[in-house]
């Protein structure tokens, strides 16, 4: 049963520390999305890649966030340095483009204290 895998599922870190979240998209999918979910803002698109190339990262605070796809089986989202306001659930999703069904991972619940 193909699914998007995210690690870690939970992360508690101290303010100022670097956080790396990882995502393994479904094999064969050419589009990978990173979303952040909070009670206040809902689901926000941070960035997305097509064929490993970044297409849109306008939703991502560039000073501290970075997203990469080292290869087709791995997408990473890094926050450095982390801040308490970064506390949220971060979802990775993959699919065959923006206009088609996105398959979401289980998410990484990040708490920055």
């Amino acid at each position: 049963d193909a699914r998007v895998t995210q690690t870690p599922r939970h992360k508690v870190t101290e303010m100022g520390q670097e956080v790396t979240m990882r995502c393994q998209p479904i094999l064969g999918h050419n589009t990978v999305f990173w979303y952040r979910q909070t009670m206040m803002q809902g689901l926000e698109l941070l960035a997305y890649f097509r064929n490993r190339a970044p297409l849109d990262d306008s939703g991502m605070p560039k000073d501290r966030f970075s997203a990469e796809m080292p290869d087709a089986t791995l997408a990473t989202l890094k926050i450095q340095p982390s801040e308490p306001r970064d506390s949220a659930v971060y979802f990775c999703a993959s699919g065959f483009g923006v206009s088609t069904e996105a398959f979401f991972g289980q998410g990484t619940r990040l708490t920055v204290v």
Partner: protein
Amino acid sequence: GQQVMQIPQYQHVQEGEDFTTYCNSSTTLSNIQWYKQRPGGHPVFLIQLVKSGEVKKQKRLTFQFGEAKKNSSLHITATQTTDVGTYFCAGDFYLTQGGSEKLVFGKGTKLTVNP
């Protein structure tokens, strides 16, 4: 920027009652997708609407896309406790500048069902 407004934010119903959530965009959408997120879970795709005025049904769920492709609704007939969760619409905006696309989620409607 692109925004999709979704109402209501919360809806509490008695089991057996109907439920509707609405989404609205100020600009024309390429298509609209609907997702459901169970408590503690992740969004799961329900359906995509592409054509103006399109209506699709999935058992007790009816999805509509407006004629102008700016609004959409999800209607659940005779809710059950298994319908509990947050329902999101996601509007697909085609950005003429740059020719890119962007999927923007509404804030969701949280449905609770009293048995």
